[in-house]
């Protein structure tokens, strides 16, 4: 019904839209603000959502990149992400989905094992990024990274497509992942 599809809308001129999905409202808001502060030739649009499916009543532009933010301190955010993933069309996973794990720095607060998130990213063939969104510096760096990724996924970088980026990011993972 309201499954997100990557190509069901026409792209708007010079616009790149990113969707951040996660339970941590404050962190998502800060990340969105950092991203919008970035210098970028394209016009950036950042959408925030607690979970999918998105309400169909809103008129929104085509989404170029979905980032699922998982907080390693909270099992609830992982369950929420797993629920939301069901509402994303399979063709989105060709480089237009990315997982972001936050909270790995404070090991004593973690209730999810890192391996669980690694396995999730591996199952969905999507890159996994780590960032402690609570730390200013890391958040700013991650915002820069996401803006760059978004530009590639929206097709604004000549010569690089989302699929190219995906295969580049995947080649750094070890072969032992196959045993999982």
């Amino acid at each position: 019904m309201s499954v997100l599809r990557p190509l069901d809308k026409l792209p708007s001129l010079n616009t790149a839209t990113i969707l951040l999905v996660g339970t941590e409202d404050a962190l998502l808001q800060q990340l969105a603000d950092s991203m919008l502060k970035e210098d970028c030739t394209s016009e950036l649009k950042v959408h925030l959502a607690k979970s999918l499916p998105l309400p169909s009543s809103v008129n929104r532009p085509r989404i170029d990149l979905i980032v699922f933010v998982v907080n390693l301190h909270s099992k609830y955010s992982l369950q929420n992400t797993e629920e939301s993933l069901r509402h994303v069309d399979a063709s989105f996973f060709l480089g237009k989905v990315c997982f972001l794990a936050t909270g790995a720095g404070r090991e004593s607060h973690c209730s999810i094992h890192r391996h669980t998130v690694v396995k999730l990213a591996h199952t969905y063939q999507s890159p996994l990024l780590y960032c402690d969104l609570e730390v200013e510096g890391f958040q700013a760096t991650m915002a820069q990274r996401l803006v760059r990724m978004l530009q590639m996924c929206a097709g604004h970088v000549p010569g690089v497509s989302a699929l190219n980026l995906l295969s580049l990011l995947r080649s750094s993972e070890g072969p032992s992942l196959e045993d999982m």
Partner: protein
Amino acid sequence: MDSYDASESTPRQSTSLRPEDYFIGATFLQKRLESVRKQTSFIPTPPRRKIPHCSQLQEDVDPQKVAFLLHKQWTLYSLTPLYKFSYSNLKEYSRLLNAFIVAEKQKGLAVEVGEDFNVKVIFSTVLGIKGTQRDPEAFLVQILSKSQLPSENREGKVLWTGWFCCIFGDSLLETVSEDFTCLPLFLANGAESNTAIIGTWFQKTFDCYFSPLAINAFNLSWMAAMWTACKMDHYVATTEFLWSVPCSPQSLDISYAIHPEDAKALWDSVHKTPGEVTQEEVDLFMDCLYSHFHRHFKIHLSATRLVRVSTSVASAHTDGKIKILCHKYLIGVLAYLTELAIFQIE
């Protein structure tokens, strides 16, 4: 996260050779590099773990001798291997540590009002607290106050107790040379100032390093599952969990108490393979508790942080405090804690 695997043999064990086969110096570094390299590859937390059972060495453990270890709150530390520690020099160590403590206290660094400066330090080994024959013997350090009247009460009051142990520490034992004694788990009970003094002395004498061992929510839920799985004749305490909700301005604490037999019944319905505990079973066990709570209170406990777990076997707090209540599963509880300590060292 944890490199120790209880159910399958690790590749490390099959490839280790005797030290004499290599040049001296290259071996230990090589072994360390090998173990570190193996950990950075995606070896997951062992999805299976044996339920703590009465160890084969249980006969050596005298229930009376270990009774003083139970029902006390211990603060946990992980300790790197001790250099040139010898079990035959315990008397000498007692003497040196005694002198050090007296010197420190006279320096005024750790003066407490009303404290007796006449203290006596005793080092002793505790037999039987080990997992395999390879594990080094556990030893105990006690600070006793010397009583003023030597005629009565030769043994003064115990002011501070600390003990070092290693249970199934194979993964660490393989990677260190003969000069080192591996006792990665240190438990202390008593004044914090004494712990600091003892820690300083050990660090200076044996070139080791203490660090506080915190237990995160993931490990606490494993402990809850493993301890609930233990078969007990009678339950001495209710099974209780404590969660901390991160909200401003003041954090909220949620406490959830279950009758231990109900908890065991829940675990039995979740548990499939006998003698092993898997990650899925632990997750399912905790999810049952979370969904039950959600149904009644509409609060998602999975979004909060598990801070304390308390069962009839033992109780653990995330700050690294543990209290063991049952001598039957003492070795099992210590084995898991040793694993966490080894992981922190590595």
